[in-house]
């Protein structure tokens, strides 16, 4: 830390400069270090830390949260709100210089608050939720590791640091999905998540390589300053690769299949990693790289399309699922689709997407923890067809879940309304027919969201009891679980309005974020869109209420084409199997064959040749001095002859 760098380049336009960190901000590295040290302690001490380990985990995140708030407050008072802290030269090979440095700017700051704030509540909840699990200490170690990696991801000042965090959260996610590795389904889900993430990660890695090859740097400021000078094709490829990485981590089309399976992990994991924070890393990546994405219109169109396709897909599949966590997982996929739509629209919509991301972090964590609370009271039952009538038995869970439900369907005045509705409006502000296409998709998604979330809510908490025989009195969860629920519910109610009014202004200080849109007139007036979106929401919710008020069958029913398709994840798994898995297996077998026969044959042949040559040469080593002397004499004659030949010019 003794060496702090600034890059005050005198670039004409579009130059990005960061200020050096000072005061409290020069200790932002502690944000990453504290959870990391805590994770290391928990893992290294082993069973000795079993009794108090979870509290250490909670405390580490609590301290990080306090530090995050303090840093945030200090950042508010600064002129240049992008503060850079260079810790040391991380990689210096040839022309490649990668700085181990952190960047604390408004975008990073709101992520830090989300990660540590929501993270702290979920840690608290997990103390009780995992109370009866033997691996609780290990769980908290991984949880801390995740938080550290996620903070590194959002705090790095270059793409390599981001990649570090990116892989770190991937690792933590893998460890936590397959936390109950004894269950085959959990182990498989962990592998699936890992493999699909590899696809995305490879894209991100190649993107970083391209950055270095064309710009010679991976520092954010230098990349953003230099990206204007690149050829259009290069920017397109670079952006698509970054997008591939983002899709992998955020469960977006076409790499969405791992996210619902990831619900095999403990529920707090689903809440923290696979709903509130890690899966939004893709949104962060695109928002952070906005100078790259804004530089190419085609790129933006691709991002918007990915967002629109995913959001509709998530809604459709979510409406057909019966597992409470999977419905929530598909709703996450769908909501992140909204965020992608937002960041793809560019300009001011970046900030809207971030607002939705933050609001979503609250209400989705709230609902996941609510679902965990329900499962806790119902012997780990997850099938919503076997719930019903729980509102009387789990008052707190019911009320808090209701807040989350109203928030996610975008009902006025809950937070979803303030965060989602502007994205729909922004979609309608595009040029020409695409405004109708994407605006329509966003509007349709809002209606579908209202339908399936209402279905989930009604089937769980209302209507007749359809419990399995072994349950008599579902119980409300203990205090340690309900308090985080209540706090998150408050967030679900109020966060949207607060965030929507403050965050866009706050984010303007971040390079390229939150500025004014260049202002196409929306194809529909703002009021009409607002009314329409509320209307489809009420319609969807009302329809679901009518259909499911009286409960539902406890067994799968025959259904039409669309529902069957949705139950099978719109055949995306089948597609992956046919297009990637089968040929992949075939290719592997072919390569193994080639390796055994061709490569190994060559290697073994060479080895045999060396061994044989060695055996034969060995016979020259007879042990007789006379033969040694002869060999020396022969060698001497040859050397003298060679020297003389050189002298005579025969060899020259």
């Amino acid at each position, binding site marked *: 830390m003794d060496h702090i760098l600034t890059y005050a380049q005198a670039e004409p336009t579009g130059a990005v400069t960061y200020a050096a960190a000072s005061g409290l901000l020069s200790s932002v590295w502690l944000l990453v270090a504290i959870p990391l040290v805590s994770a290391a302690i928990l893992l290294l001490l082993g069973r000795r830390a079993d009794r108090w380990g979870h509290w250490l985990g909670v405390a580490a995140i609590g301290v990080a949260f306090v530090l995050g708030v303090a840093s945030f407050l200090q950042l508010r008072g600064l002129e240049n709100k992008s503060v850079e802290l260079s810790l040391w030269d991380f990689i210096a090979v040839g022309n490649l210089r990668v700085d181990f440095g952190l960047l604390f700017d408004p975008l990073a700051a709101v992520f830090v608050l989300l990660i540590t704030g929501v993270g702290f509540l979920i840690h608290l909840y997990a103390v009780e939720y995992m109370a009866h699990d033997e691996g609780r200490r290990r769980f908290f170690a991984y949880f801390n590791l995740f938080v550290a990696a996620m903070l590194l991801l959002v705090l790095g000042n270059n793409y390599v640091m981001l990649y570090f965090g990116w892989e770190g959260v991937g690792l933590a996610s893998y460890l936590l999905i397959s936390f109950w590795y004894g269950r085959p389904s959990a182990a498989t889900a962990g592998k699936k998540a890992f493999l699909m993430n590899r696809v995305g990660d490879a894209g991100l890695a190649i993107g970083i390589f391209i950055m270095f090859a064309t710009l010679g740097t991976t520092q954010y400021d230098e990349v953003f300053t230099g990206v204007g000078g690149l050829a259009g094709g290069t920017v397109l490829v670079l952006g698509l690769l970054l997008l591939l990485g983002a899709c992998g981590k955020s469960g977006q089309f076409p790499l969405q299949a791992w996210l619902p399976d990831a619900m095999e992990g403990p529920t707090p994991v689903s809440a923290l990693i696979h709903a509130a924070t890690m899966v939004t890393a893709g949104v962060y990546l695109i928002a952070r790289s906005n100078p790259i994405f804004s530089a190419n219109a085609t790129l933006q169109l691709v991002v918007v399309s990915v967002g629109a396709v995913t959001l509709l897909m998530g809604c459709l599949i979510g409406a057909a699922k019966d597992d409470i966590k999977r419905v929530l997982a598909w709703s996450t996929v769908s909501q992140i689709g909204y965020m992608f739509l937002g960041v793809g629209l560019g300009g001011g919509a970046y900030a809207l997407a971030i607002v939705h991301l933050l609001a979503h972090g609250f209400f989705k964590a709230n609902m996941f923890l609510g679902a965990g609370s329900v499962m806790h009271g119902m012997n780990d039952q997850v099938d919503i067809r076997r719930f019903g009538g729980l509102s009387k038995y789990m008052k707190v869970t019911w009320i808090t879940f209701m807040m989350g439900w109203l928030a996610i369907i975008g009902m006025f005045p809950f937070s979803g309304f303030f965060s989602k509705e502007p994205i729909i409006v922004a979609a309608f502000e595009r040029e020409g027919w695409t405004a109708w296409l994407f605006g329509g998709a966003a509007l349709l998604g809002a209606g579908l969201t209202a339908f399936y979330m209402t279905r989930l809510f009604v089937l769980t908490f209302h209507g007749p009891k359809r419990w399995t025989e072994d349950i008599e009195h579902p119980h409300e969860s203990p205090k340690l679980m309900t308090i985080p629920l209540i706090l998150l519910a408050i967030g679900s109610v109020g966060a949207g309005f607060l965030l929507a009014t403050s965050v866009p202004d706050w984010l303007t200080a971040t390079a390229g974020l939150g500025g004014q849109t260049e202002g196409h007139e929306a194809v529909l007036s703002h009021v009409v869109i607002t009314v329409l979106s509320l209307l489809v929401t009420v319609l969807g919710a009302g329809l679901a209420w009518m259909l499911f008020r009286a409960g539902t069958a406890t067994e799968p029913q025959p259904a039409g084409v669309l529902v069957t398709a949705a139950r099978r994840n719109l055949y995306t798994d089948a597609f992956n199997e046919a297009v990637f898995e089968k040929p992949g297996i075939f290719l592997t077998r072919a390569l193994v064959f080639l390796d055994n026969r061709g490569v190994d044959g060559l290697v073994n042949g060479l080895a045999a040749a*060396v061994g044989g040559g*060695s055996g034969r040469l060995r016979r020259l080593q007879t042990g007789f*001095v006379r033969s040694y002397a002869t060999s*020396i004499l022969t060698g*001497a004659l040859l050397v003298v002859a060679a*020297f003389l030949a*050189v002298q005579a010019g025969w060899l020259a």
Partner: protein
Amino acid sequence: MTELKLPSIDYAALSPILIMLGVALLGVLVEAFVPRRHRHLTQLSLALVAVLGALVMVVFNADERLVTIGGAIAVDGPTLFLQGAILVLAAMALLLIGERSVERGGAFVAQAAVTAESDDDRRQAEGSNGATEVYPLTTFAVGGMLIFVAANDLLTMFIALEVFSLPLYLLCALARRRRLLSQEAAMKYFLLGAYASAFFLFGVALVYGFTAGMPDRAAGVDFATVHAAVKDSPASPVLLFAGMALLAIGLLFKAAAAPFHVWTPDVYQGAPTPVTAFMAACTKVAAFGALLRVFHVAFADAAWDFTPILGVVAVLTMLVGAVLAVTQTDIKRLLAYSSIANAGYLLVGVLAPTGAGVAGTMFYLAAYGFSVLAAFAVVTLVRDADGEATHLSRWAGLGRRSPFYAGVFTFILLAFAGIPLTSGFMGKFAVFGPALESGQAWLVVAGVLTSMVLAFPYLRVVVMMWLSEPGDSTPTVTVPGGLTATALMIGVAATLVLGVLPAPLLDLATDAATFVR
């Protein structure tokens, strides 16, 4: 009567040599006058003090750059660096030689004159104390090596060659066990060594003839004269090239380069292991120090002519060493072939005609010396009731029995194989880099390919130690005494440190890479 002019002598610059030779003479007196039971301690302390004293003088002389005693000795960067290396490595070798707790009485025979395999011999092998003559012999050898790397004319070099070779021949014959093998090794080494010396001497004569007849210079075999003669001697160049070839043969014999390497496996195997370690480390340094001086000082201007031929010798050496190492079944022979292959890599450094080549070679010599001493130190520890268990099959499963020493040996083997974070990697890098820069890519390609072949025998030992089940015949590793442990730890630590932080020694070598003429 002509007046006799005495050359001026800089005693301070010569002091390391004088100390070693003086203490060696003192050692002979100790043998005569000190009671038998005190001799071991006295001799060992005396030898160590001499080595350390000489080392202090080398450090004290660090900035000297001069030619003294009538042009016979040059004290310059390479001299001082290599003398320092020889002295440090010799100190470690002395620790191994002085060890008496691993085997009762030490690794040396008590009475060299006792008939091998007789009853007397068996009795002495059981526990009488080893001969203490080994210390003066070692000290003489070290003194000779110090002269060898500093010699500034071919005659001095020849005398130094004999001064350090003769004690080595004797030392080889002094093993406590398997004495016939040991004596046979000494005999072979002596006969072939004498044979090679003859080549060297004949080369000196031819070169002397070549220097005759220059208009304003007398004939002579000092390097300045030879250097001037290479440029503008009227004599037939056949003399020069034949002489150069014969000189090279004499030196390549000591360096164990193919096809003059044939003695190496037999001698390394037969000699007492501490002596093998001493030869593998110090003789290597001395031989390459002389090669560097002869080819960079005397014959520098003939580089175009000798580089291709010595390059072929280097490639051949690497190939022979690597390929033959593959089928060895005895650990000492395996290390001998590894040492031959390493001679090939060192020649690559010698043939790079720049200061960087000299520096790289010197770094490699020091780094390799530490590792090879540590390797032989481990070999002295793996033993059963009949002495050292050197057959490779006996090492199977050693990792289960003594994970620590198996781990140490694995680390050293990885260093030999040139794995990064060990000195072996940095050493290869230091010699291959300058060779590549001076356009000798073919040598580097050969070096890398043979390194790959050579990795196989090393890894075979590693696999054998860790992945085989220990059998009934797997020996235990003796707990080393303090002396061996110190030498081993210094070697391992140096191997690690020079791999992780090579810069200080590399800088030292680079600063010292200029010869005086």
